[in-house]
């Protein structure tokens, strides 16, 4: 039975991967004749029990353990699986529920061909037996959950953590530095030039804390990070914004360059490379606010530390990235980032804009125009930003998936 359960969960996940289009939640109209049909097995105790069994194995993944529409596979779905504990749901006739279950709509499969009529009526009996949850009076303290959709905006971190038990996979790709001149076409928009790539996997420890691991091509850098949501904005704005803290350690694994004998550190001691010199750190506090369902902004003081820097540079950099997300419609959004550098060798501000295409809140593709071919914040802020005043820029994309 449990194998069956896992296989069906997997199928559901695959289904939701495939469901690229977004359905609008329109009224679901049931033919009058179907509406009038009464449950032939009545709501007998036995029918409810067998309905419950079927429900637990087939429907829980989307509709949730208690029927509230909050199953694990519900995360990316639009429209959301129906909540069976609302008064609205119970207003309809058994015949209507039976018909919807039989015919399906969107990701909700038509169960006509999969379950016998008796099984379907048993399910209807079970659904009808679920209690209506009176919405709690405390709606006022409802939290703002989706200030941003993912843990990163374009290059910067967001205040967002992951829902419990959920993982996030990210691919960040940047093409080479290019320019709008005759080379642009020749370079094929910079795609022929060197490219940078980061793969990252993040896993929720609970809904406020997640850990992540990433690997970036430049510097063959591995990075370990964690984010903790300290304070969460509420819908009534009693808590007007969210705060998260984030830390990341980069480990450069490239071969150290050759140095000649007799080289020294700036303080005069003998120079030799050690493991600590491979490390760089990124610590930040992120303040974010959702102004409306479709517009969020954030600001995040960031301290970057490199254990070893070149002779005329500083170990510490301090920058304040500012980011915003404007949702254009259900499927797309504009993202924006600018990073004033307060303490840094080169003060030119990294700038990025992106157009996000999301097939669901769990899956997005972002097309990026930016002024840095670096991806890890440690290297973005400590390296010189590309001179956009000369018309130079970098194109790239991010792909994100929650699962």
């Amino acid at each position, binding site marked *: 039975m449990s194998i069956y359960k896992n296989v069906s969960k997997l199928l559901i996940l695959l289904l939701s991967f495939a469901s690229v289009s977004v359905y609008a939640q329109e009224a679901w109209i049931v033919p009058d004749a179907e509406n009038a049909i009464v449950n032939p097995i009545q709501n007998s105790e036995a029918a409810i029990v067998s309905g419950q069994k079927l429900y637990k194995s087939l429907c829980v993944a989307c509709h949730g353990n208690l029927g509230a529409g909050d199953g694990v596979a519900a995360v990316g779905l639009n429209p959301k699986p129906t909540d069976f504990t609302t008064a609205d749901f119970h207003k309809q006739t058994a015949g209507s529920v039976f018909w919807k279950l039989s015919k399906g709509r969107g990701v909700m499969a038509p169960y006509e061909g999969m379950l016998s009529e008796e099984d379907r009526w048993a399910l209807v009996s079970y659904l009808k037996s679920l209690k209506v949850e009176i919405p709690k009076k405390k709606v006022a303290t409802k939290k703002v959950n989706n200030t941003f959709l993912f843990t990163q905006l374009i290059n910067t971190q967001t205040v967002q953590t992951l829902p419990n038990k959920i993982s996030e996979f990210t691919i960040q790709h940047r093409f*080479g530095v290019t320019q709008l001149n005759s*080379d642009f076409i*020749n*370079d094929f928009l910079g795609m*022929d*030039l*060197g490219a940078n790539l980061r793969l990252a996997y993040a*896993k929720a*420890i609970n809904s406020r*804390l997640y*850990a992540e691991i990433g690997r970036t091509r430049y510097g063959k850098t591995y990075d*370990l*990070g*964690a984010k903790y949501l300290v304070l969460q904005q509420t819908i009534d704005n009693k808590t007007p914004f969210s705060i998260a803290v984030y*830390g990341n*350690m980069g480990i450069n694994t490239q071969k150290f*360059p*050759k*140095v*000649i004998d*007799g*080289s*020294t*550190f*700036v*303080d005069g001691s003998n*120079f030799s490379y*050690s*493991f*600590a*010199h491979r*490390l760089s*750190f990124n610590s930040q506090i992120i303040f974010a606010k959702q102004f409306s369902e479709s517009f969020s902004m954030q600001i995040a003081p960031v301290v970057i*530390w490199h*254990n*070893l*820097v*070149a*002779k*005329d*540079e500083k*170990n510490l950099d301090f920058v304040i990235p500012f980011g915003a997300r404007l949702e254009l419609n259900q499927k797309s959004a504009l993202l924006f980032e600018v990073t004033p550098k307060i303490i840094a060798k*080169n003060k030119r501000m990294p700038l990025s804009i992106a157009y996000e295409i999301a097939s669901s809140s769990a899956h997005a593709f972002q097309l990026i125009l930016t002024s840095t071919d670096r991806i890890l914040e440690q290297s973005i802020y*400590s*390296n*010189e930003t590309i001179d956009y005043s000369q018309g130079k820029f970098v194109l790239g994309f991010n792909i994100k998936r929650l699962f």
Partner: protein
Amino acid sequence: MKKIYIPLIVVVFSLFSCTKQQGPIEPLLVISTVSYVNDIQPIFDENCIDCHNINVEQHFGDLNLEADKSYIELININADYDENIKRVIPNNAINSILWQKVNNSNLYGDNMPLTPNDPLSQNNQNLIKVWIEEGALDN
């Protein structure tokens, strides 16, 4: 709940492994006779051929700095950047675009290597200069 230790370990680990160092400062070598094969080509190999290689050179000033190509592509060849300037004029570093680009003069477009945060070391710059001044030999 055990997984909560992962970030904790990261934090503790990082506290123990923090250093604040700058360098290296290389002692200035006394350069006498420079060999193209033993001194100059290794500089290209380490710092330049990611961009200046046969596959992508057309995007990078049409210059290939790989071992068997670099010498003939440099000596007395007109620069792609400006036809009136030579890449290397033997005995004349000042008027060679190669030297001007590696010594961060900002005179002829981008400085090399095209990675602003790690310029060639002073010794490597000196080697290239002395090699040109000694006649830019293929030795």
